[in-house]
């Protein structure tokens, strides 16, 4: 097993990559994918804390349960967000968030 710090650093790197993607990408689908990366980085953290701190924190599974919920919520989020993107594309013929500057359809 690798030490906890290494897992955390790796998840931090993944999270930063996700942040970079969210900030630079213009396509809504791409932004969504970057958000997925961030979510996964977070859930790695959750799992790592749960595993490495299990003995120290009274054998609870909170972290893993959270990771599990994150997976589920991410699925819901992706479904919804893609619905919005498809809608956007349909109405404005673009998936580019910079071009969606009207506050109305």
């Amino acid at each position, binding site marked *: 097993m690798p030490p906890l710090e290494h897992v955390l650093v790796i998840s931090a790197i993944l999270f930063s990559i996700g942040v970079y993607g969210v900030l630079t990408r213009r396509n809504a689908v791409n932004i969504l994918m970057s958000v997925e990366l961030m979510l996964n980085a977070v859930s790695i953290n959750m799992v790592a804390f749960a595993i490495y701190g299990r003995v120290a924190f009274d054998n609870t599974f909170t972290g893993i349960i959270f990771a599990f919920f994150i997976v589920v919520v991410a699925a819901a989020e992706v479904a919804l967000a893609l619905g919005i993107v*498809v809608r956007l*594309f*349909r*109405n404005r*013929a673009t998936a580019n968030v910079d071009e969606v500057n009207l506050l109305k359809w």
Partner: protein
Amino acid sequence: MTQAQVTVEPVVVEEEFDTVDMNINMGPQHPSTHGVFRMVLTVDGEQVKDVTSYIGYMHRGGEKLTENLDYRGALGYQDRTDYLAAFNNEWVYCNAIERLAGIEAPERAEYVRLILAELNRILSHFMFMGAFGTDVGFFGTAFTWAFKERERIQDFFEAVSGDRLMYNYFRVGGLAWEPYPTFVEDARWLLRQVEAGIADIDELMTNNEIMISRCRDVGRMSAEDAISYGVTGPLLRAAGVPLDLRVDEPYSIYDRFDWEVPTGLRGDVYDRYLVRLEEMRQSVRIVAQALDQMPASGPIMAEGLPKVLKPPPGEIYMRQENPRGEYGIYMVSDGSDKPWRMKVRSPSFHNLSSLRHQVRGSYIADAVIILGSVDIVLCEVDR
């Protein structure tokens, strides 16, 4: 029949922008276009919004060629328009010339012609069953089953005419030669085999749940639309119009037999299949009766035909019921030894022109089976 309500609506492509439309080029090389036919499907996902047909890949100028050959010499070309119903085509062509020139074929020849033409109809419908089964997705089973029977009929035709596809057996005024001695017995045996084959196909396809749900209400065409598109043959009868030229504009000796014209109720793909299946049975009936009535001996060629055929000036639009519908030959004679104008009205051509009407709004898979149910022969479409 309501009057003149059939007008061409403009193409209403939905203005609503659903995702991106995609153009799919189906053909000229595609397993289910039944030849070199190309249709460009504009699809939204799986749904077909519009379809454009491109034909002419097989255009050989058969009409022009016929106009440059003498009446008898062009007979061989007629086999090649609809190669699945070559006897029927030859018959129409011979009949057209005979009517133009005032020749009457002897009765025995007429019987042989009718028997062969009806068997050819069965053959063609078997071909349809096979190809249509493949379109619907019977991985080759329908095809091989139907082809087994088709092979039998072809063997018979080979025995009669010496060829399996381009028979060139009919002549203006009769037949090329006497049918071989056991013609009648062989034909009877063949009929029994064919009847069993029809029953097999029926059992395999008709009541199959998937087949039904695939074909029911797909490609529906109302009688008015079908008539307006010039659709004839099984397609039109499936739409409920009992137009069969063997009955409605009788030619040859069809009035001597007892048979029925099947018509469908809904005009969908399934009805077309059923109509064709029933037509095969009716053809078997006709052939059986014709075999019984056929004179055992007699001339097979009209007497006193000139060596060079020069029908008097005049014109005829000779039409007969081919397996695919009304096959017409419009022939104009100027008194010389070559037809001045020969136009083939091919049923496939006009049936195919209704494809767009049927396909729009259905699924890609439906487009395939609708095209299959139209049962085109591309050689005939393009001529």
